[in-house]
């Protein structure tokens, strides 16, 4: 037995680090910023970027998306981030299908940053993952890639066997002919590489699918069950150091000065550097870096930084909601129609800030030399990060090499519109270059507290709705006003997705209300607040699904109609909504009485249906409320219409997980600020749903031959309104403030 021996950590700071430290403090005192450091760093950086990703000899690499090795492996290059949604299974399935490969020969590799080959076809020239677009934009592209490779392998076999290509067959990765000849893909790989790439290929008919729509096991389950899956947090590089950063307590607050006297003696600490976001302590281990960070004496400029409080902001939002906003939708004259209605209802809703709180706190590894900035990251937005790093570092975008690793969750956080945490990691590497220490890989690790307090939240919102019903119980007018921060204002996406003052992500799900109502108005106030905000799994639908679907439910009751019938009557023009709604209602036994609870318990059933990212999800929630107004969600029946379900089990998993994620927000999610300080810090004050609170879930997929739409997000926004409607059915109480509290 070889004992693993641990060496003591390296001795305290060497001379170099002391020099860096002195330099940093001097710089801080003189008010210099990293931007000025950077000019020097840029001057040192010259020369061409390295070429990466050349194919090995003997490989058959027909296109950017796959290669066949002589060892008979088929390696699929996946252009999207695997963050749990199953894309490392879904995209390889498309290639395996058209290639007729055996699933066991398929390997997966993350694509490098190269928007010329790996752009998201729904995002134009940009490479990245989000908006539940991975399958939707890749469905034909990856199938065509597989079909082209198959045609070349078949042509190679036909050439060798001197038979017509039409007479060559393929099954499970084996090429064969009626004459008895056969060959593996590996054996044909080299010859196939000499075939011309076909200009046009015919894709399979759906009836011939062997993988699409069938059960294909996830490619990452084994590695994620035995601890070998490698996340950014797990990356080890030679001579790599770990950095933990002292961040300002308030958003936008500047550093005044710092004193690292207590840090220098901590074993393992190597460097202390000032960066734009604060002060980074760089050490041989995480623990040394964290102890160093905690020992820093840092003073922040009290004249800078955001000092708002969420309570006061919410009160302002409520006032704003009483005044007209910018028009996001105007059908007819809603105000007039409601004014003349037989019955009028109004309701106001409040939604808090929400943190993404991925299990893997934000982190990023950077190795910077004058020629190359290499980054290892759960990389969700290659093109944005590449350009942001290039701009910051003075390198060219092609000198930024991004290695995409598994992400331990993201929920939108790792696709930062400002590349915030990635740039923070780069800024640490830049500080090391400036200090004459280029090429040292540094892993920046945020603690849970850094992550929770680090901003980029789902914005806080207020919604004000009113509607009128005529004497026969039909909605005649609907008026919906939304108040909240714009996610896209000030980002590169603003020009594309903010139109006439309307940030589409603020109103999606509201401006797209599917119900046939003659007079509809949707208005928006975009507030300007110094809290960084970002898309959060299902984005605008996180709040619009709640207000629209609970208000519709309230209107159904006011109209004396069954909530499913009421919705059905207004969805004639939306067959996908109808199909999902009816499937969920049918499978839930809607209309049949719920079994009674124990003595003193009330039970209720609620429904909601909502489209996001082209996918329609309907859910029926069943709840039990006890005599103390505590409640539990017993069961959720979910129907999803996502076109072709490429991997039905992954679709089910995303619905299950989406419901659990949505329940966390419905029951617990709330980030608050007081005098600019975020009041939550870890899972004791920002709790996550646990297994004992998870309902039973039945997922049903609407059979469809439509092109696939995404499933990563659309399961999330539907559960909160379905739950609230169930609670209203059980208790008569309408909850309009999130998270939900009864009693």
């Amino acid at each position, binding site marked *: *037995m*070889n*004992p*693993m021996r*641990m*060496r*003591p*950590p390296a001795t305290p700071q060497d001379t170099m680090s002391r020099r860096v430290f002195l330099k940093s403090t001097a710089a801080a005192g003189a008010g210099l910023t990293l931007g000025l450091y950077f000019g020097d760093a840029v001057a040192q950086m010259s020369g061409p970027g390295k070429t990466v990703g050349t194919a090995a000899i003997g490989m058959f690499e027909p296109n950017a998306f796959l290669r066949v090795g002589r060892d008979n492996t088929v390696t699929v290059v996946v252009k999207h981030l695997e*963050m*749990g949604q*199953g894309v490392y299974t879904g995209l390889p399935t498309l290639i395996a299908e058209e290639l007729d490969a055996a699933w066991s020969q398929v390997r997966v590799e993350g694509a490098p940053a190269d928007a010329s080959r790996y752009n998201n076809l729904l995002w134009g020239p940009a490479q990245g993952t989000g908006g539940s677009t991975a399958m939707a934009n890749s469905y034909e592209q990856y199938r065509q890639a597989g079909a082209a490779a198959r045609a070349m392998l078949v042509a190679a076999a036909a050439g060798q066997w001197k038979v017509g290509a039409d007479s060559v067959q393929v099954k499970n990765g084996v090429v064969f002919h009626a004459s008895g000849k056969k060959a593996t893909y590996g054996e044909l790989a080299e010859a196939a590489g000499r075939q011309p790439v076909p200009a046009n290929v015919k894709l399979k008919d759906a009836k011939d699918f062997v993988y699409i729509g069938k059960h294909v*096991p*996830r490619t*990452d*389950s*084994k*590695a*994620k*069950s*035995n*601890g*070998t*899956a*490698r*996340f950014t*947090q797990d990356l*080890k590089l030679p001579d790599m150091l770990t950095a933990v950063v002292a961040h300002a307590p308030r958003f936008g607050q500047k550093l005044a000065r710092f004193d690292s006297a207590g840090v220098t003696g901590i*074993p393992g600490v190597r460097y202390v550097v000032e960066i734009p976001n604060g002060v980074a302590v760089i050490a041989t*281990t*995480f*623990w040394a870096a964290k102890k160093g960070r905690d020992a820093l004496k840092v003073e922040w400029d009290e004249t800078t930084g955001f000092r708002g409080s969420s309570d006061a902001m919410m009160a302002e939002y409520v006032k704003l909601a009483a005044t007209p906003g910018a028009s996001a939708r105007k059908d007819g004259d809603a105000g007039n129609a409601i004014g003349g209605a037989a019955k009028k209802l109004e309701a106001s809703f409040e939604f808090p800030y929400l943190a993404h709180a*991925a*299990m*893997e*706190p934000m982190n990023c590894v950077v190795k910077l030399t004058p020629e190359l900035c290499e980054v290892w990251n759960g990389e969700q937005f290659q093109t944005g990060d590449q350009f942001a790093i290039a701009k910051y570092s003075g390198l060219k975008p092609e000198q930024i090499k991004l290695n995409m690793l*598994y992400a*331990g*969750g*993201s929920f939108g956080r790792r696709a930062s519109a400002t590349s915030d945490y990635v740039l923070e990691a780069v800024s640490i590497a830049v500080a090391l270059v400036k200090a004459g220490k280029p090429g040292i890989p540094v892993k920046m690790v945020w603690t*849970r507290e850094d992550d929770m307090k680090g901003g980029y939240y789902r914005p806080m919102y207020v919604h004000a709705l009113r509607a009128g019903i005529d004497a026969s119980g039909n909605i005649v007018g609907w008026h919906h006003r939304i108040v909240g921060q714009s996610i896209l204002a000030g980002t590169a996406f603003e020009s594309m997705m903010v139109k006439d003052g309307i940030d589409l992500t603020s109103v999606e799900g509201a401006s797209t209300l599917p119900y046939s109502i003659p007079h509809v108005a949707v208005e928006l106030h975009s507030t300007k607040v110094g809290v960084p905000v970002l898309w959060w799994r299902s984005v605008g639908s996180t709040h619009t699904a709640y207000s629209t679907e609970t208000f519709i439910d309230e209107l159904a009751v006011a109209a004396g109609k069954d909530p499913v019938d009421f919705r059905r009557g207004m969805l004639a023009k939306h067959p996908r909504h109808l199909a999902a709604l009816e499937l969920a209602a049918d499978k839930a036994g809607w209309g049949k009485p719920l079994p009674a609870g124990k003595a003193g318990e009330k039970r209720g059933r609620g429904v909601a249906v909502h489209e996001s990212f082209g996918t329609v999800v309907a859910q029926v929630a069943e709840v039990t409320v006890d005599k103390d107004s505590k409640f539990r969600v017993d069961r959720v029946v979910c129907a999803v219409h996502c076109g072709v379900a490429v991997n039905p089990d*992954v679709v089910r*998993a*995303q619905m*299950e*997980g989406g*419901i*659990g*994620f949505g329940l*966390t927000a419905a029951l617990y999610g709330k980030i608050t600020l007081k005098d600019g300080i975020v009041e939550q810090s*870890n*899972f*004791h004050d920002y709790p*996550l*749903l*646990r*297994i*004992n609170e*998870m309902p*039973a*879930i039945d997922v049903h997929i609407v059979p469809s031959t439509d092109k696939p739409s995404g499933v990563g997000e659309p399961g999330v926004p539907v559960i909160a309104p379905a739950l609230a409607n169930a609670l209203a059915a059980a208790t008569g109480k309408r909850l309009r403030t999130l998270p939900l509290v009864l009693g």
Partner: protein
Amino acid sequence: MPTFFVNKERVDIAAGVPGDTPLLWILRDNLNLTGTKYGCGMALCGACTVHIDGQPTRSCVTPLSALKPGVEITTIEGLATREGRAVQTAWEKLDVPQCGYCQSGQVMAATALLARTKRPTDADIDEAMTGIACRCATYVRIRAAIKEAARSLA
């Protein structure tokens, strides 16, 4: 110079290693056993769960100084018991993981449960697993996979 065993191999800790270093970071940074994850640092999420003498333990709040000499620590990399293999097989069969970051902790907690309770009830599962948070909410499958593993061991 504390000595203990990690996955059956002897580990000698040099005198210079601070006693307040949590076991989690000894495993990850010094022994390169990165299957055990950092999630909260406060024993709130359970991603760092390992077995110490068979007991599921939060390594993020277990300082080196608290380890008794000779203790047996098992991490996800060294999980070789019958229960451990059954859990991992069930995890794969049911495609439990999504992002996967918490799953080492889930597997370690589930294995410890099955080692002491052959046919766990839902209440047993709730009790043993509530401490391990999964942000992807893979709980439906975690529950099913524990039952599947129990069946396979019967």
